[in-house]
């Protein structure tokens, strides 16, 4: 008997996977999509330039289409597409390399690095788990109330750490609770609603602050690079976005409750399981306390001093990262393990794409085209932006969707005569409303892996939740952002 056949099944599978990983050949369809995407750039390079558009602008439109194809079909990693966006610009003579790479040094990128280091420390010391269990204890009196608790807890935690991390945190907690209550996967509506509450709670919560959703810093990064720049502070963002979050949370919960009426009556087993998990956590350790302190300090600094006249968002985020190192809460090894550096590249590409689309006049030309089709009615334009973003974010990475639509949205805003801030808020927030498909967002995929709901359940609830959230964003845009805050005039 050879060695491989003596290995347990799990190890054999792992071995096979390693072998597969070491030799990677893209699928035939991947080559097709890559060629198709590059052909779009080639066409933009060789075709005659239409009136009103510069040659550089036409090439940028080609690069935008290429990025859209590659980010939707994903024949290569998202970050590699971003690198392509960056290098094609100097190669095709759109912008000098120095100008392109300068956008990479955007403050939003450093804000993101700091925020990821903070999240890494929270995860390392299990602070997020303690907070999650504390939250859940408030809601353990009734099954329906408990599912609302999951939604709220996920949303609140997504205010201070990336949404995908929150989904990954809540999955084992909630699965153990469902197992304790003897809930059968796929058959129990309590199981379905609980799992969907994780997915939707994280998505909705990620709209609330600049930390939860990766696309939010992207929007402020592009706005800060406009001329004249528009600076959005931590508090500004929360003031704009929180109404959407707090209206969407109860409504989406009602959608889930009505779509899947909960059959469970007694939640005492769940209560016992939460108590057991809280006991397992034990008392707060010194480093966990320090991380909590630094987190609270960072939030306070973001609230009080993130405007341009003080330190700005990025400096505070990096400061908190440095404090975590000084206090011994985190090591460089932890940062290497828990900070996804690929997303930084993704951001760099996305920001340079947005900036170059504006600076070459491609955005204005596209906006003109859209203006001729849709017309200049403010309400119609807002509704179209919301619909396009929601549809696109369902089928591709939400950062990719926002990166493609933001430059167009900003140009459309200028053409129609309202502030790019309004269109950026619409696109950035709607980019997080990916409720319908497993592939839409990591949160959906993580919770789907539990086996408690089907793709059909997700779609059924997601369609209604999306429709409601589209209505919410539209109403908030009209009555709050325009009616109260006058964002259209900033």
């Amino acid at each position, binding site marked *: 008997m050879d060695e491989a056949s003596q290995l347990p099944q799990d190890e054999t599978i792992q071995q096979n996977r390693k072998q597969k990983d070491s030799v990677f050949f893209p699928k035939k369809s991947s080559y097709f999509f890559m060629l198709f995407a590059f052909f779009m750039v080639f066409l933009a390079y060789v075709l005659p330039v239409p009136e009103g558009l510069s040659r550089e602008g036409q090439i940028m439109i080609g690069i935008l289409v290429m990025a859209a194809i590659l980010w939707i079909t994903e024949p290569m990693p998202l970050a590699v597409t971003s690198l392509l966006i960056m290098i094609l610009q100097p190669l095709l003579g759109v912008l000098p390399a120095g100008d392109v790479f300068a956008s990479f040094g955007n403050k939003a990128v450093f804000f993101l690095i700091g925020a990821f280091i903070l999240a890494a420390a929270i995860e390392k010391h299990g602070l997020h788990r303690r907070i999650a269990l504390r939250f859940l204890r408030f809601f353990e009196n009734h099954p329906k109330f408990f599912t609302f608790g999951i939604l709220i807890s996920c949303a609140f935690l997504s205010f201070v750490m990336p949404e995908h991390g929150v989904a990954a945190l809540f999955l084992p907690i909630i699965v153990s609770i469902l197992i304790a209550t003897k809930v059968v996967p796929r058959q129990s509506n309590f199981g379905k609603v609980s799992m969907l509450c994780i997915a939707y709670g994280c998505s909705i919560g990620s709209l609330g602050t600049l930390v939860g959703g990766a696309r939010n810093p992207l929007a402020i990064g592009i706005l800060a690079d406009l001329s004249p720049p528009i600076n959005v502070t931590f508090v500004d963002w929360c003031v704009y976005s929180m109404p959407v979050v707090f209206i969407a949370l109860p409504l989406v919960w009602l959608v889930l409750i009505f779509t899947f009426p909960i059959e469970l009556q007694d939640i005492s087993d769940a209560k016992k399981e939460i108590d057991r998990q809280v006991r397992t956590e034990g008392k707060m350790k010194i480093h966990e306390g320090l991380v909590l302190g630094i987190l609270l300090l960072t939030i306070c600094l973001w609230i009080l001093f993130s405007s341009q006249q003080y330190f700005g968002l990025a400096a505070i985020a990096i400061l908190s990262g440095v404090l975590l190192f000084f206090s011994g809460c985190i090591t460089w090894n932890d940062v290497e393990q828990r900070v*996804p550096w690929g997303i930084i590249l993704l951001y760099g590409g996305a920001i340079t794409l947005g900036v170059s689309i504006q600076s070459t006049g491609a955005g204005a030309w596209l906006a003109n085209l859209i203006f001729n089709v849709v017309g200049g009615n403010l309400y119609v334009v807002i509704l179209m932006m919301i619909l396009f973003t929601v549809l696109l974010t369902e089928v591709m990475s939400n950062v990719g969707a926002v990166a493609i639509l933001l430059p167009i949205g900003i140009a459309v805003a200028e053409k129609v005569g309202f502030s790019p801030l309004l269109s950026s808020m619409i696109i950035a927030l709607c980019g997080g409303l990916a409720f319908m498909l497993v592939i839409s967002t990591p949160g959906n*995929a993580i919770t789907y*892996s539990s086996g408690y709901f089907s793709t059909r359940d997700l779609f059924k609830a997601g369609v209604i939740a999306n429709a409601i959230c589209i209505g919410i964003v539209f109403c908030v845009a009209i009555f709050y952002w325009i009616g109260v805050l006058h964002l259209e005039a900033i």
Partner: protein
Amino acid sequence: MVVFDNILIPISSEFYSRGVLEKGAFLAGCFGSRVTIVYIIEEKTLTQTERRSEMFRTRFEKEETKKGIINNQKQTANVIIFFDAKTVFKEKNIIPNFKILEGEFSTVIAQEVSAQHFDVVLMGYTKEGLLKYRIFDEIAIPLWIVGSPGDRRMLAVCSNLTPNQKIPEISFRLAQCFNWDLHLMYIVDTGEPVTFDESAQRFVKKSVSELLDAGQRFVDAMGKKGIAAQLMTGGFQEITLHTAKQLNAGLVVMGQEQKRDDILGFPVKSMSHRIVEKSKYSMLFLK
């Protein structure tokens, strides 16, 4: 009179149906069979999660999440599904074997079937998942898809598209065993006027009248054995689904119909797969 001596019940982490366990207990009770229940942690749901998280989570975090998901799945299998199974099988005084494996549904089943001598695979089916169910074409033993319970009637379907060697005999024995009514029919598929050659290895083209004659000979031969059979003409899939609905069949028994399924030369789902998708009834595919 044992038909199925060793039953394999695979349960995907993506789809669990208690009905499969109940049917398994019923069959094992009838035949005194051994039962193995395999819980398969679907590789696809894990890779999907990894793929979606590619840019947003580190390798370390993805591994952590994956381990967590696998642990959750193992807990779910042990505490919920195997517990359910023990309860269901206890009523028949049968103690099944339990296993938890990680991999792709069809591949794991194929590996299990090749490693041990199973007589039938008993499984549930859902369209609402990421599973592709290559299993319809990849195993050489009977495959029983458990659907909604119908009446105590069995529909056995023979046709010009299968060798029809096992269907009448096994259906007859199953119907006797369960004490169900047997409805045997022979369908001449006019859309595919072919039949097997004498060695039952490959198709030969025939005219419709030749196929009807062959069908009539089959019906007569069954009559001599005391089994009433009905001759039908038309599309295999349509007639099977229509008759199953009319009978509200508790089980539909059919072979692996070798109807050519392609669009512009590209292969599409097998006919067995399409019939299962469109039918709510239990199906037994004899290979």
